[in-house]
Structure formats: C-alpha cells, structure tokens
C-alpha cells in the first residue's frame, strides 16, 4: 500500500443470504483510491457497485453480510472497527451522496437543520457558528440566497438543488472521501452538467477523494481519473480514464462501449451483448461473463480469471491476457 493511498479494498466479499440462496453480490473485489483522486466505479444494475459503497461504510444490513476481505482507510481496517467508531467516520471522514436526492433527505425537517445536524455530529462548533457554516456551505454549492433557502423543506427544492444540498451535507465536515452513488442519474441532462461541474470544483476546493459510482461512462469520464468496471460482482477491468476508452481490453468493456449510442459516432446498428445480466444466486461458473462473451474459450467456464496487470496501472481479469500455465 503506497503512501498516497487513501482507501484500499482487498478481496472484499459481501454476500446476501436469502431464502432462495446465497447472492454473491460482491465477490473478491480489489480497489484502490489515492489521495485527491477520483475513481469511477462503472457497471450495470446488479453488478454490485452500490454494495461496494455500502460495504465501505459498513451499512450492509441482513440478509447481507460482509464475509471477508479488508478495507484499509488511513492505516486501519474499517471492517474491524466497532459500530460506534464507524458512526464517527460516516459523514465525517467518509460521506456519501445518494441517487435520489429528494428522498434521501427527511421531508419533515428543513434543509438547513439537516445540514446543521451533520455539522453538530462531527465537528465541535458553537451553536451560533453552525448557522453561519450552513449558509457558507450552501453558498459554496451554488444555492442562491442561502440564508433564506436553508429554511425550506426538501420538497421545495428542485432535483438539482436537492442534489446540491446533499452534496453540501456530505462536504460540510471536510471528508477525506466522498462516495457518490449515481448522483446524477435521475437529473435532467443540463442539471447533470451543473452537478458534475460542482463536484469538480468541490474536489479542487476541498481536496477530497471521490468514489463516483454510475452506469454512464460519459458521466464517469467527466470527473474521474481512474475507472473500475464491474460485472456480476467482480471487477473485470481497471485503468486510467483515457486508457479505458483508447484501449479497452476486457470483452465486456469493449462491448459496452460499442453498444451505447453516441452523439459523435454514426452507426447503423449498435453492437449488442447477447443474453442478460446473470442473477447472482447461481452465477455462471468460471468467468461470469463467459456465456455472453464472443471470445469465450474452454477455460473460461472452468476457472475464474485472476486480475492481471497488462500495462501501467491497467488490470484485466480475462483469460485472453492471463499467461497460460
């Protein structure tokens, strides 16, 4: 683990023990986020990316359980901490922004009071100073007329403004790591652009690292330095942003990139990925992508590929690149 590493996830396993069977939502995932770095976590619904986020903050509830691995943050393994210690970390050193901004806030409390609560929990601030801080932070995220708007309720905010307020709440205690789970998915495109812009600025101002989770590679590209692609509970590819677009190596990444309609590329037909995302109760044997892969080989259904570094910081989990023998 290098000096510049802020968060290091090793071999994380989070399973859900349901009546129908064990769902291996996150199965041996490795991830690293450095200080002041933005890592994108990309994948479709059900691939486990949100579960990774919740695992970091130890917010997994039964029937889910973190069954293995380590999550190193500032020299300590988060998985070994007590609930009390985790509570101090949540919203303080590590905070999270969720997908549905309006429903992530309590509708019966004003926005200002919710931000104030976060500040009170994590910082030793005098009562009168809290109000100032709230106004300051609302102003920072671009909410117009903050001293008035802090008295409003969440439903009086538009979607974009809610997301700004949530971001304000998440940043109010100067976290080292901000986890943003699909923060712009439900927003209009022009508002999405605003929020991404905001996050870029926040990153500069606060020097926080960001774990940005989403399924839109374009959005990820806007903000992230590095990206990890997840499929069916596993990380299949990991590299810098530019590399993933210039030289995607994993068949899933390649197919994904080619199946999305793009404004700048003319195509008669889009590349399709046959089949559907597998259910994780009985995932395919060996490589989980093999039933849909056009390069499938015999070994793919028998063994699981281990991630292999094929270039500068570029890792792929695929037998096309694993040296045989």
């Amino acid at each position, binding site marked *: 683990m290098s000096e510049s590493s802020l968060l290091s996830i090793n071999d994380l396993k989070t399973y859900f023990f349901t009546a129908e069977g064990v769902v291996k939502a996150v199965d041996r995932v490795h991830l690293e986020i450095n200080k002041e770095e933005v890592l994108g976590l990309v994948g479709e619904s059900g691939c486990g990316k949100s579960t990774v986020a919740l695992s970091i903050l130890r917010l997994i509830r039964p029937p889910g359980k973190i069954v293995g691995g380590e999550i190193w943050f500032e020299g300590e393994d988060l998985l070994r901490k007590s609930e009390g210690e985790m509570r101090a970390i949540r919203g303080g050193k590590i905070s999270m922004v969720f997908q549905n901004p309006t429903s992530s806030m309590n509708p019966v409390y004003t926005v200002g009071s919710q931000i104030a609560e976060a500040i009170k929990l994590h910082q030793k601030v005098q009562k009168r100073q809290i109000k100032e801080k709230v106004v300051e932070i609302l102003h920072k995220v671009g909410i117009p007329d903050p001293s008035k708007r802090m008295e409003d309720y969440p439903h009086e905010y538009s979607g974009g403004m809610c997301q700004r307020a949530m971001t304000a709440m998440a940043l109010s205690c100067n976290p080292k790591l901000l986890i943003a789970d699909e923060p712009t998915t439900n927003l209009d*495109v022009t508002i999405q*652009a605003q929020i991404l812009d905001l996050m870029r600025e926040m990153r500069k101002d606060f020097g926080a690292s960001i774990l940005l989770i989403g399924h839109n590679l374009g959005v990820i590209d*806007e903000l992230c330095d590095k990206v990890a692609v997840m499929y069916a509970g596993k990380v299949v590819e990991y590299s810098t942003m530019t590399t993933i677009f210039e030289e995607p190596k994993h068949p899933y990444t390649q197919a994904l*990139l080619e*199946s*999305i309609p793009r*404004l700048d590329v003319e195509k008669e037909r*889009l590349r399709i990925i046959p089949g559907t995302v597998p259910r994780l109760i009985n995932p395919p044997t060996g490589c989980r992508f093999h039933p849909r892969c056009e390069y499938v080989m015999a070994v793919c259904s028998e063994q699981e590929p281990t991630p292999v570094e094929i270039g500068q910081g570029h890792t792929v989990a695929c037998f096309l690149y694993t040296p045989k023998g």
Partner: protein
Amino acid sequence: MSETILEVTNLKKHFPIRRGLLHRQVAAIHAVDDVSFDIKREETLGLVGESGCGKTTLGRTILRLIKADAGKVSYMGRDLFKLNTKEMRKVRLEMAMIFQDPYSSLNPRMTVADIISEPIDIHGLAKGNEKKRRIIELVKKVGLAPFHMYRYPHEFSGGQKQRIGIARALAGNPKILVADEPVSSLDVSVRAQILNLMKDLQKEFGLTYLYISHDLSAVKHMSDRVAVMYVGKLVELAPAKEIYKNPLHPYTEALLSAIPIPGRKKREKRIILKGSVPTPIDPPPGCRFNPRCPYKQPICEKEYPKFIEVEKGHFVACHLRK
C-alpha cells in the same frame, strides 16, 4: 418516401390548476403550447427534451389519450379530433404506442399471448388457429420463443417485457408507432438490443416512428429528423445530423454540450446553464428560454420568436436566427 403521414397543427394542451372550494382555476400548466410539425411516411422523428417540456403529453395528445384543448392532428389526411368514438377506435389499430415502463405497461394477470393479441381481440381481426398463428409469428419477430406465450409478465426480464410490449404494438399492423422512452428503464447493455430490434422492424414493416426521449444520443441514433422541445414549445427541428453539427437554438447548443461523451478528450468550453429547468406554469411572455440564455437580448423577454425555417429543412424559434 417524403409523403406526410401525420400532421400536427397548433396543438395546445393546458392543465388547469384549481384552488379553493369552488375549484376556481388560478393558473395553468402549459404542457403543450401551439406545437406544429409533420412526420413523413417511414421516417423516424425524434422528439427530445428534458423533464416538464411536454413531450410525453404531446405524444399522448396526438393519440387522443389526452384531450387536446386546441389544434388539429391529421393522420393520412383525416382530422383525428373530428372522428367519433367508433371511427377513432378503428384508427387506433394503425397508431400504436410503446410505453416507457415495461413493468407497469403489461397487465400482470394476463398471459403473454393474451397481452399480445389484445388488438386482435378488440377488433376481431382473427380467431382460433389463425389468431394463434399470428401471435406466434409476432412472438418470434420480436425475438422470443413460442413457448413463452402462456407465461406471465413477471417471469420475464425488463428487456423481454419490452419486446412483449412491442409485439403487442405490432399486432394490429400499425402504420405509425409512438415510442415513449422505450429503453430508458432498461439496463444499458439491453438497450442496444431493443433499439436494433426497432430499426429492423421499421425496415421490415415500413413503420413510421415518433421516438420520444430525453436521451439525445439514442434519439440521434434512431431518428431521421429531430425536434427539440422546451417548456411546451418546439424550439428547433432539423435532420438528425444537422442538429448535431449545426445546432441553431441556444438551448439545443447547451443540451448537446451538456451530454457527457465518453473519451471526449478535449474538455472544450462547456456551456453550463444557470438555473433549473422551469416548470411550465403560466410562463411569461417572450422566449421561454430567455432566463437561462447566454445570448439574451431585450426583445427575447417581450416577444415569442416564431418557429421558422431558416435553412432548408431546419426550423428554429429564436430571435437571433432570423
């Protein structure tokens, strides 16, 4: 083929906001305001816009699922609003709709066969073995297998449900299909399947599409021409390639620039609009985009610009582009 199949003229739909004991109207939501355009045979017209722009209301008003307040919709030369219930029912066979949410658009208590054959049943188009044959044909056309026929919707994935919805839309041999966000609820890797299917079916059956979506990339991929809506009005209409290369309306420009494109290396100067997307409640006179427009002029607040053809086939409503 450049023959017009559907013509919309000055279509208007306002939703009144009523308050008080007497339900007095205090304001109105201008969902669709004086919209005119046409769709040519076998073309795909894309209708794009953000939330609240009125595109969904427009689609439903055209199909007379919502009653318009004013204007005319002419299908194959017939004024749809003047048809009586019986005549309209027959026309509905030719104008089908594909819905956004595959989960709620299929009756959970009906089998796939019953769902697909509904247009056939309603209009008595076929019975018995002939009907069964047609259902099987449709099922295969959309990429499902005949043995799926007697299953229930909940046994299928989102993408498959959407296929069922498409089969149902095709059952009456429609000429024009209104697709309201057909792939927005689906997983990214499944969208391509449905979009390709729609294109194939269009070629095979000579269908005309009105493709409504907020996803400009998908719209551009599917459409021949694209119409952009903002707060109840059409602000731009042009061939798909044109819209991208040469957007004339400031909103279209901003919209295009806001869309994240993977791998776009040069972080070119982005147009970030201030403010939120406005609600269409009692909009002020003048251009509705003016509060957020980077090129605003005094006239933009006073007068609404006319929707005119500034280049061949390229329409804009903007004072700057006259």
